């Protein structure tokens, strides 16, 4: 009985704080993306051939976790199969955040663009109890600065 009550409290806490945190995060991501639009991240391996550029490796990473409510919902979803929205938004947020951090680093160097952008996603949840989803996204690329 007590276990059930505790679980319900955790789920409602997770829903309340998790929902708020996600909304806030999306708002900040969209605002910062607008600012960073002037600095494109390009997946191409070929840098422009017009003139000389300084090349420097830049990277950004973020470790992000799902809240208890979403984990519970995902557990239910696992029974029936189908789209797991809670994980999709989690990964979307993590990727966009990592790219933004990479661009921050590039901007500090005065770069014009970031080329050959690669993503790397790894699950590091083996480290916490109950195998809660903890995901790391690392984005890296080469910042080109006109000399």
């Amino acid at each position, binding site marked *: 009985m007590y276990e059930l009550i505790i679980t319900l409290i*955790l789920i409602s*806490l*997770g829903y309340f*704080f*998790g929902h708020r*945190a*996600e909304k806030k*995060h999306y708002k900040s991501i969209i605002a910062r993306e607008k600012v960073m639009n002037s600095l494109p991240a390009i997946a191409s*391996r070929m*840098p*422009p*051939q017009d*003139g*000389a*550029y300084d*090349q*420097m*490796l830049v*990277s950004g*990473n*973020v*470790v*992000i*976790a*799902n*809240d*208890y409510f*979403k984990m519970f919902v995902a557990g239910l979803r696992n029974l029936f199969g189908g789209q797991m929205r809670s994980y999709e938004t*989690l990964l979307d947020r993590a990727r966009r*955040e990592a790219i933004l951090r990479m661009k921050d680093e590039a901007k500090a160097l005065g770069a014009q663009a970031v*080329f*050959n952008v*690669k993503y*790397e996603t*790894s*699950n*590091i949840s*083996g*480290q*916490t*109890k109950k195998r*809660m989803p*903890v995901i*790391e996204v*690392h984005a*890296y*690329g*080469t910042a*080109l600065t006109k000399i």
Partner: protein
Amino acid sequence: MFISNLEFMTGKNVTKHLGLVQGSSVRAKHAGRDIMAGIKNLFGGELTAYTELLTESREEATERMIEQAKAVGANAILNVRFSTSSITAGAAEIYVYGTAVILDGLD
């Protein structure tokens, strides 16, 4: 030392390839951070302690790669790749590798 994940450097020629250089680092965090992360896990959001840990770990791996490149007399590392693997509970391995080269017109 120039480090880049492109295969060449704009406006500069590679005079010599010196082969693969690599660096790795395995790190674990202390128990206090682990407990904090567990609490944070309930509410979701970023686990700053882990982010810092992995950033430090990557810097160390890169540092080791650079040392190795200096030892073979390179002045740049091209085509750099990262990889992460969680080898055991509480530790992650960061591995970074690239091609050490000598570029024209660099000190």
